[in-house]
């Protein structure tokens, strides 16, 4: 066991066979290979105005962490993400419950919700900017329009997937509407609620980042543009990597929450 641990610690020095025969090890090797090819390729023949080798990106990454304006911009973007997410939850959950529980509302309005969901939202991005300005408000609005539909639709589906037997059972035992909602519907909603949260978070990220890239004064979009236009690819790569890391962390948080909260259901 200690031999394999040593292998894991120094993968590139060892004979590798043991290490590479495990999927995780082979995956790391693939990633390392890509990074090496990238590094060598850029150093041999990359235009320094457009390409940066990974080693320089890592250095730039740590420089950016010490850079107050960039960190403030990241903070702004994070705040936009969370605000849009919270508003989307506050609207999407009640609407989803209403559509899911109320047969007439569902029949009438669920098709409309689905149709709105199918509209490519990139088309309304300039309109959102016109209405909400180029500050954080437009990013929050655009993140909201992206996040609210997955939540609503998943919650409607979650309510409808509750086994009719359970509802009949509760009703025949004399539960009133509120008791049914509180003791049957809501507990069974939890898995789909968290699924909706996860989908909404990735949609939220997409919406906020699209709006940031489109126009931005204070968020990360400002710096992606700045680094592109001043031909500092190592900073741009580093910023993109940082944002990707934030995205992965947010997604992973939602997925953990989803897995944990739906465990009782199995």
């Amino acid at each position, binding site marked *: 066991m200690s031999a394999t641990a040593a292998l894991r610690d120094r993968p590139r020095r060892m004979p590798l066979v043991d290490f590479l025969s495990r999927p995780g090890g082979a995956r790391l090797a693939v990633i390392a290979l890509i990074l090496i090819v990238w590094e060598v390729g850029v150093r041999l023949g990359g235009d320094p105005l457009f390409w940066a080798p990974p080693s320089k990106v890592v250095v730039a990454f740590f420089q950016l962490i010490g850079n107050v304006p960039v960190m403030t911009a990241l903070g702004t973007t994070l705040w936009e993400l969370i605000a849009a997410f919270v508003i989307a939850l506050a609207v999407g959950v009640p609407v989803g419950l209403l559509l899911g529980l109320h047969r007439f509302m569902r*029949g009438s309005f669920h098709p409309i919700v689905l149709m709105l969901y199918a*509209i490519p939202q990139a088309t309304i991005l300039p309109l959102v900017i016109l209405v909400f300005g180029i500050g954080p408000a437009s990013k929050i609005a655009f993140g909201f329009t992206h996040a609210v539909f997955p939540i609503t639709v998943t919650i409607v589906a979650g309510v409808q997937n509750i086994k009719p037997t359970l509802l009949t059972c509760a009703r025949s035992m004399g539960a009133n509407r509120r008791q049914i909602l509180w003791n049957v519907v809501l507990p069974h909603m939890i898995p789909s609620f968290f699924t909706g949260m996860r989908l909404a978070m*990735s949609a939220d990220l997409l919406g906020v980042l699209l709006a940031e890239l489109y126009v931005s004064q204070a968020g990360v979009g400002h710096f992606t543009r700045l680094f592109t236009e001043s031909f500092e690819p190592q900073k741009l790569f580093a910023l993109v990597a940082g944002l990707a890391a934030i995205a992965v962390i947010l997604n992973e948080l939602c997925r953990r929450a989803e897995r944990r909260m739906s465990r009782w259901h199995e």
Partner: protein
Amino acid sequence: MSGMKLVYHLVQAAFVAALALAWYLATYNGYISPILLPSLTASLHEFWLLLASGSYWPDLQVTLTELGTAFVIAAVLGCAIGYLVSRSGFTVRVFDPLFAGLYSIPLVLLFPLYVLFFGLGSGSKIAIGATIAFFPIVLNTIAGFDYVDKAYITAAKSMGASGFQMFWCIMLPAAFPVVITGLRMGFIVAFLSILGTETIASLAGLGHRIVTYAESMDPAKMFAYIFFAILIAFLLNFLVSTAERRARRGPT
């Protein structure tokens, strides 16, 4: 039940009519600045002019060419790499989490880099569309070929199927529905990301045209192009869903 359906449709029609009326009234007396919200009649008029004049054609052509190129690249690479990866359980375990992890990153982040590499023109749109479409295609291809029922494979082997027969008669039909779903998802996300990145930075295309009119404060024309882009989106959606259903039915 059909009576209930009629009521639902009536409510939906009433809802849409109420929205249209609200839009009409809001802009009728200039309660809302016409720069933010042009009058409904002006927007519809521009939409009609756009459809009648055919002036959408150059932009539509640009967007659809980008979409087609991006989709073909993503489909060829995605299916080929997905099939190769699915050949052994080991490579599936190595690459599947890698692709899934990358797919969970909002890949539109790469767009500023792509603008650096491929320029403002169609190149960067094709690249971003192909990148984003690649992942659902490759993941579904891997899933499709990986989960073929082992009983079929054993049966075919014991009956002495050749390698080609194995692929053509067993693997492909079994994996096909999943692969085709991946292709449809890839097509749709390619379209959405191309439209989105045309909005961010581009020289031509439907997204570009919407932005141009937004920035030149010509909102009626902007709405006309928004309506048009939504129309195209619904048409493409309908086409690929129909194609998917047809293709599913075909080989079996």
